[in-house]
């Protein structure tokens, strides 16, 4: 492999990726399509579970300002090495499952992915609610909104930008880390990376890397799109600034004219 320039390698990776035979399943090999779907499935399940835990928890902690130590605790999880945890859990759990099922590898993988996805979602959701201007929640309370109405009508919509950035970084980390599920070994796009490594089939290995990166970028773009649709323009600031500013200048001029001494 020492020979052959970068260009040649890129060409080989490209032909690996574009060879339709690699996308189909064969009796011997699982194709790209199947592994891609498996990768998406692992990731969706993990982000889904993490979101179902961390979102309500973050909203609760932010709204009540109780149990904030949980946020710090979740952040401490970040220093755990994900591969190490994955190997540990696999070694612990997999022997309990026998036969043709891969549940023994799915469970540890999902645990690691969920543990990875919780801290960003939890801390961002908490920070989002915590950052809502006290004047806004005070006004909401003062006009007679109840706890739930304030949480879902005011605090949640106001924290959406931060919540989305938490979900986006959790998703990126999950997609990236789902790759190492193939190390234990499980399906997913990481299969190509580890198999390629073992078989010294570098086009396959690099092709796998390209696929993971492409999946991550696509997922992030999708989430960015959803964020655009869901977050109020009053918060994202995507209103016509020019029109607003010009009108403000006019208003300011009028205001000054009105109060000028006569």
């Amino acid at each position, binding site marked *: 492999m020492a020979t052959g320039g970068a260009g040649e390698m890129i060409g080989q990776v490209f032909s690996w990726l574009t060879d339709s035979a690699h996308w189909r399943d064969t009796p011997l090999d699982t194709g790209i399509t199947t592994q891609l779907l498996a990768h998406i499935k692992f990731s969706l399940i993990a982000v889904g579970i993490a979101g179902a835990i961390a979102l309500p928890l973050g909203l609760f902690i932010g709204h009540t300002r109780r149990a904030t130590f949980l946020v710090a605790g979740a952040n401490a999880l970040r*220093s755990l090495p994900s*591969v190490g945890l994955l190997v540990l859990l696999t070694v612990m759990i997999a022997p309990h499952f026998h036969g043709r099922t891969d549940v023994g590898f799915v469970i540890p993988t999902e645990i690691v992915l969920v543990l990875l996805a919780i801290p960003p979602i939890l801390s961002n959701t908490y920070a989002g609610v915590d950052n809502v201007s006290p004047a806004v929640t005070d006004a909401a309370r003062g006009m007679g909104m109840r706890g739930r109405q304030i949480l879902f009508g005011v605090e949640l919509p106001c924290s959406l930008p931060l919540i989305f950035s938490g979900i986006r970084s959790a998703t990126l980390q999950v997609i990236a880390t789902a790759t*190492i599920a193939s190390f234990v070994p499980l399906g997913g796009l990481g299969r190509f990376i580890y198999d390629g490594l073992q078989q010294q089939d570098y086009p396959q290995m690099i092709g796998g890397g390209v696929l*993971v990166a492409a999946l991550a970028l696509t997922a992030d773009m999708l989430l960015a799109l959803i964020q655009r649709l869901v977050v109020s323009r009053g918060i994202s600031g995507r209103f016509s600034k020019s029109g607003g500013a010009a009108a403000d200048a006019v208003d300011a001029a009028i205001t000054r004219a009105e109060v000028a001494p006569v």
Partner: protein
Amino acid sequence: MSLLHAVFATADSPSSASSSPWHFFGYFLDHRSQDLSWLWTHTWLSVVPVIVGLLIALPLGWLSRRYGWLYPPMVSITGLLYTIPSIALFVLVPPLLGLSSLDPLQVPIALTVYSVALLVRVVADGLASVPEEVNQAATAIGYGRARRLFAVELPVAVPVIAAGLRVATVSNVSMVAIAGTIGMSNLGQLFQIGKDLSTPTAYYPPIVLGIVLCVLLALVLDALIILATRLMTPWRRAVPAK
């Protein structure tokens, strides 16, 4: 050390054969020189890319602050880099740079790319966090642009930049371990060994040792950055006058 060894050895006899998770320390002592060398590689693989990344990010961050139009493209491009999974980046670096696969530079280069991606934004935001009055006051007392940057802006931005460094360093420790699974020699090798030794029955010591050493390394590096930040920002410890 030998006393400790004795304690652990008696607690878990026969020493080298025990597969108990708590035997990790005995395992460490049995393979001390190998483990320490992996720990050392792991440490510099975690630290050096962050330092190099900071050195690259400082001018880039400063530029995107100085020329406002540079900020949006700079932030989106570096944000895009950050979406590439680490393992993908590890395997992509050699063909893109014309290195051989499993080149020793492959991992540090990939991690440096991540650090730059994270820190450009942090530096720009950190410089932006310097209050405008402070900058104007510095200019007013006759500081030139360079002097103002090094004597005023960067010191004031230290807390924000340090927060970014902590994130970059701690996540690096975990990513280096991932590189271990594709054959790089660092603490990640312990997971490979543990996995290989765990058929047919679980053999925990190397796995637990790897996790413990990784967490300790992350905590120590994190604490060092916190300490350095405190030393560099004595004014933040001043108690506000009531």
